[in-house]
């Protein structure tokens, strides 16, 4: 509607072209990115002191890779994230379909309850998990990888509502006539779900799953409270290393994690691509 106006030189609504606004956005992006980019750049620095640039090296990556504790923590984190993702997809997708399809008494309460893990402070959630697993005497000396089960449960509890939101957003655009057509053609509930609804939902499920994966991989606070003294995850290990010093090894490991998360986030956004749909709606 205002597209024609926007192309005109310096229209009154053309805030995007105003210099002060461009400067404000540039400064904000600098504020957001400078520390992360510096951190990543200096993971390639050939100096222990880590301040002055001495030359390019990938030494720190090799060292981080051979740091047994760090490696174990990384493997644990990936394993937890995978398990939490699968569970979040199952729990989140089913509930998203249920909420989309059915009216039932107490629905607003149920929806409010499901949003709660997203909004309460992380520390409250962490404390709740700590108390819960202590109270029900969840065994802490299980063999690997079962010792990670408590963390997986805790992660799923705060990840699946996010997956459900993404899947539900996808369902809004679903044409229910497709479902009716499938039924008219003789498909049962299960077949309709498998052959019509699920294929349509696939981008939403993938995006929601990737979201759960990054959330789980990134979580520090809840894991910090849920994990027993013997289990380390990547953020918990980095936390204990950071408390003592700033080392290029931590830079290297952090860079690896940032690259993984950024890749997955961009992938999730491409799959889901909200702005492609925005044009239509």
């Amino acid at each position, binding site marked *: 509607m*205002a597209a024609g106006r926007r192309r005109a030189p310096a229209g009154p*609504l053309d*805030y*995007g072209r105003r210099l002060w*606004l461009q400067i*404000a*956005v540039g400064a*904000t*992006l600098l*504020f*957001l990115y*400078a*520390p*992360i980019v*510096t*951190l990543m750049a*200096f993971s390639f620095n050939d100096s222990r*002191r880590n*301040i*002055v640039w001495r030359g390019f090296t990938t030494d720190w990556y090799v060292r981080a890779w051979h740091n047994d504790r760090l490696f174990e923590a990384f493997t644990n984190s990936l394993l937890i994230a995978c398990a939490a993702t699968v569970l979040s997809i199952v*729990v*989140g997708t*089913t*509930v998203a*379909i*249920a909420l*989309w*399809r*059915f*009216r039932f008494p107490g629905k607003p309460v149920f929806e409010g309850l*499901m949003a709660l*893990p997203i*909004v309460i*402070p*992380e*520390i*409250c959630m962490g*404390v*709740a*998990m*700590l*108390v819960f697993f202590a*109270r029900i005497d969840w065994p802490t000396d299980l063999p690997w990888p079962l010792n990670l089960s408590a963390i997986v449960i805790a992660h*799923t*509890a705060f990840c699946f509502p996010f997956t459900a939101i993404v899947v539900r957003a996808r369902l809004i655009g679903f044409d229910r006539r497709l479902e009716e057509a499938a039924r008219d053609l003789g498909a049962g*509930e299960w077949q309709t779900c498998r052959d019509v609804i699920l294929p349509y939902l696939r981008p939403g499920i993938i995006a929601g799953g990737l979201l759960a994966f*990054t959330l789980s991989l*990134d979580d*520090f*606070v809840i894991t910090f409270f849920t994990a027993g003294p013997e289990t380390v995850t990547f953020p918990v290990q*980095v936390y204990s290393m950071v408390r003592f010093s*700033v080392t290029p090894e931590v830079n290297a490991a*952090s860079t690896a*994690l*940032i690259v993984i*998360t*950024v890749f997955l*986030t*961009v992938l999730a956004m491409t799959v889901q691509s909200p*702005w492609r749909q925005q044009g239509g709606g």
Partner: protein
Amino acid sequence: MDSWKRNKAVFFILSLPATVWLVAFFVVPLGFVWVLSFGEKVGIIGIEITWTLDNYGRALDPLYLGIVWQSMWIAGLTTAICLVVGFPVAMAISFAPGRWKAILLLLVILPFWTNLLIRTYALIAVLRTRGYVNASLEWLWEGGREVLGLVGLAWVLGERFEPLELLYSHAAVVYGLVYVHLPFMVLPLYAALERLDKSYIEASLDLGAGQWRTFFAVTVPMAMPGIVSGVIITFIPALGSFLTPTLLGGPDSQMIGNIIERQFKAANDWPFGAALSFLLMYVTFGALALRAAYAARGRGLAEA
């Protein structure tokens, strides 16, 4: 939308996993904490539920009340800064041409998905006395000294470079919290501005109001739902933050989160920790109720 009665079996199968998960691994754990907050410590590890209110009373102890107050204003200041910084950014995104909109939005969201701990660690690396900011300042100092030396004024800059203490203070905590929470503020603001009918702004400008007057009299009131959402979803996690004050704060810049953590780890006073964590929950509920009330009022106005 069908009634659940139309196909009970399907309804139960679809809603069962989430219901079980929510109840067993969210409601019940929170219930445990709630009950625990009325308990009393017996001996070293024993806890007896006596339904006492002492734990909540202890939060009013001047020592803890001071920390609660400090957490409130640190979180409040963080939220205010995020709002002031985030609004122009949200406006720029919302008024940007299509392709730029997507890119800018992605750029704002990306740090949000980067690990909280890593981002805090990056701040430490940048701000510490031997960090990049101070290294740059030292470089500037040396250059400045040489230049001033030419005119015999080198003494102005002192004999030795004194690195700035940028970490371990209240200011560092606020800086870190703004750094972490800015995307939380920008996204709801952007969503509200995007929904806003831009012809109102145009009308205001056409009718002779200046940019500032239009901004405060038209744009801000119309973006109010987004502002309220942004303030709430920035303030709540900032209030309950625990990592940022631990890593960036000084010995006196503790927040509620640090006290809670200590009760569950070092101090081993679970009932008191549970009470504090529920106080935080009540603040959250209050804020959410406020937002719901605000949204309801907005709907009422729209219908009238």
